[in-house]
């Protein structure tokens, strides 16, 4: 994994050409695939804790010959393809040539290193995730300007159990996400007092997501 520092010069150097030969294809039916992916994302964010599968048809996004760890979950790639465009700067925690080329080509989304500018961020390595409040939290009059994070996790089902409550959940929801550091939950709890400002996230694994809007109250059991 490239540590943060090294990838910081990503933007300038090779922004020029996109290598079409190795470009990963996007949706084959943009209109209907985007709609399907969006509805899955809408359902996941409306019902925090629910595991929602994204059944878009997308090739695997592998870096050239690198280990599975470099593999970007299809759900994250599909979500960014469906939502990003020229007006939404995207931040990648680690440089990922395949993903950045695909995003720039298919969606025209600008890539950024400035956490505060990012509308979307793909965090490949939850353990070394940047501080939450490095991202835009929105402000009281325009809380919608907060960033949306796609956080890759090891599993959506066999982590230590947590209890989620809040809008979208009838009373409570047992959630077992594996691979999210305690520091994340701690930082997130600190943001709660600043509501309506805050951060919304999706945990992604393979073709599935779990949504975590800022309104959800998480109790780490």
């Amino acid at each position, binding site marked *: 994994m490239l540590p943060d520092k090294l990838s910081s010069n990503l933007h300038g150097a090779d922004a020029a050409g996109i290598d079409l030969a190795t470009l990963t294809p996007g949706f084959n039916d943009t209109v*209907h695939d985007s709609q399907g992916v969006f509805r899955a994302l809408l359902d996941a964010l409306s019902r925090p804790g629910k595991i929602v599968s994204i059944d878009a048809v997308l090739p695997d996004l592998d870096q050239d010959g690198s280990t599975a760890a470099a593999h970007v979950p299809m759900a994250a790639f599909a979500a960014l393809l469906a939502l990003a465009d020229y007006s939404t700067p995207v931040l990648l925690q680690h440089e990922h040539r395949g993903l950045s080329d695909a995003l720039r080509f298919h969606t025209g989304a600008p890539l950024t290193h400035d956490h505060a500018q990012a509308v979307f961020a793909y965090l490949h390595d939850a353990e070394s995730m940047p501080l939450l409040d490095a991202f835009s939290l929105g402000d009281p009059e325009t809380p919608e300007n907060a960033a949306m994070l796609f956080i890759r996790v090891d599993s959506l089902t066999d982590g230590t159990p947590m209890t989620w409550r809040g809008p979208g959940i009838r009373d409570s929801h047992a959630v077992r996400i594996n691979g999210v550091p305690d520091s994340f939950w701690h930082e997130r709890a600190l943001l709660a007092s600043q509501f309506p400002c805050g951060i919304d996230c999706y945990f992604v694994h393979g073709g599935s997501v779990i949504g975590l809007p800022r309104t959800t109250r998480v109790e780490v059991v």
Partner: protein
Amino acid sequence: MNARIEESAMAEGYNFAYLDEQTKRMIRRALLKAVAVPGHQVPFASREMPLPYGWGTGGLQVTSAIIGRSDTLKVIDQGSDETTNAVNIRRFFARTAGVATTTRTVEASIIQTRHRIPETPLTEAQILVYQVPMPEPLFRLEPRVSESRKLHALADYGLINVKYYEDIVQHGSIATTYDYPVLVNDRYLTSPSPIPKFDNPKMHMNPALQLFGAGRERRIYAIPPYTKVRSLDFEDHPFTIQQWDHECALCGSRDSFLDEMIVDDAGARMFVCSDSDYCQERRAAQEDA
């Protein structure tokens, strides 16, 4: 009536569901943020639609951004599928998206509505899209949007309570009967759209996702499923809904919202369910029984 429109009947040369993909993406992002901050009005770059502003362009754009080929669409106005505007909008989506449409609430995956919430309880598999003329619940007390935004940012809602206090002083009770503001998730004061206050309780902890589109005012907001929605009131003047001393002339219902119809010059009146599908279902059940 579950009509599936063949592909050919769709208007040629138009995008799926009319909006271009760029606009859909913009609306979809707004919808996700609306769900994340329940009750907060998210500004969006609303587009002109082939329907006049104020006739449902907000609902139209939300439905257009979320609808897919596998959806079944129901459109109602004043509770009925047969009102001219409901017919017009249903036909619009049949032509531009070729989706199946229905008048039966239970069959619909997406319901676009104006001024009513269906009597039939909704499920987790359904999305209710409201057409909203005035998204700002405080507009009558503070018309300037720059000011009302600050009040929402600071949850500074003394103003609306003062109005209700004054209603009680003048009229002995809170004098709002439709578009009765609600507090969503104990935080945002929100306009439920001009539904009668009779429908307000249905918004609370509703299994379905509720999306609100205001096209002319360029705002989108949402109430996620199973979210607390409380109608403003005083402890000693609690929120109450209308009770009829009539029953539906067609199906005998006493617990649904009734439309009053003047049947002759002398002013004789008849009361009928406003929700035509609900009334139809009850009558069908009564015939079978």
